[in-house]
């Protein structure tokens, strides 16, 4: 245990236990799978600007999920109080970063604000719903593992067994 909380009962999990990061990585993978649908749809309706705006929005969504998971894992490693702080300040920080990123690029030639906004909202919700369906089916295995992973120690013991 690496948690620094004074009460051992309140300490969280070891460093290797990061269900948020597993989910965020899985969501980024799903976003990659779904990205052609968003890019092609925006390309059909808004042309080349739609394609680039949609790609930018998809990148923002993926970064948002990964940053959220990273902050949460970092907070959980320290203490429950740090987890609460990381989530709340992380929310404000990530919202500010998305706002600044969009406001910075809105006047560029390659940006069309409508596909950018629509992709931002639809991709976020769509990937989330997709992931939730998957997690609902595998809640018995937190971290989205299809089967419990055997540690090398356990497999050694099993090998020694007659």
């Amino acid at each position: 245990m690496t948690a620094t909380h004074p009460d051992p009962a309140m300490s969280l999990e070891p460093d290797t236990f990061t269900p948020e990061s597993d989910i965020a990585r899985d969501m980024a993978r799903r976003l990659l799978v779904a990205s052609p649908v968003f890019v092609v749809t925006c390309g059909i309706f808004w042309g080349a600007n739609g394609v680039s705006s949609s790609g930018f929005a998809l990148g923002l969504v993926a970064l948002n999920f990964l940053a959220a998971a990273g902050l949460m894992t970092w907070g959980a490693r320290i203490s429950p109080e740090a987890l609460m702080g990381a989530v709340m300040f992380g929310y404000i920080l990530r919202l500010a970063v998305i706002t600044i990123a969009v406001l910075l690029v809105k006047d560029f030639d390659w940006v069309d604000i409508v596909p950018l906004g629509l992709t931002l909202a639809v991709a976020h919700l769509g990937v989330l719903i997709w992931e939730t369906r998957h997690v609902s089916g595998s809640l018995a295995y937190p971290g989205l593992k299809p089967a419990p992973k055997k540690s090398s120690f356990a497999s050694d013991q099993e090998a020694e067994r007659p």
Partner: protein
Amino acid sequence: MLELLAQADQSVDGLKAVGAGLGYGLAAIGPGIGIGIVVASAIEAMARQPEAAGTARTTMFLGIAFTEALALIGFVVFILLNFA
């Protein structure tokens, strides 16, 4: 007369910007409260049942992402009203 119309047009644009800004701000307050409740409940669950921390953290992460979607929708409405 044309000056008056131009002034009215400008004030409509200004009111639209104020409305969009207020809407974004209000849309961010609700998810802030919601995320606070989600995390507080998850930490309570982890404290009561440390062996279920994995399930609690998985559900917490998804709950936070769903709640945050409301703020993102508010942001999208803000940029569409202001810049589209």
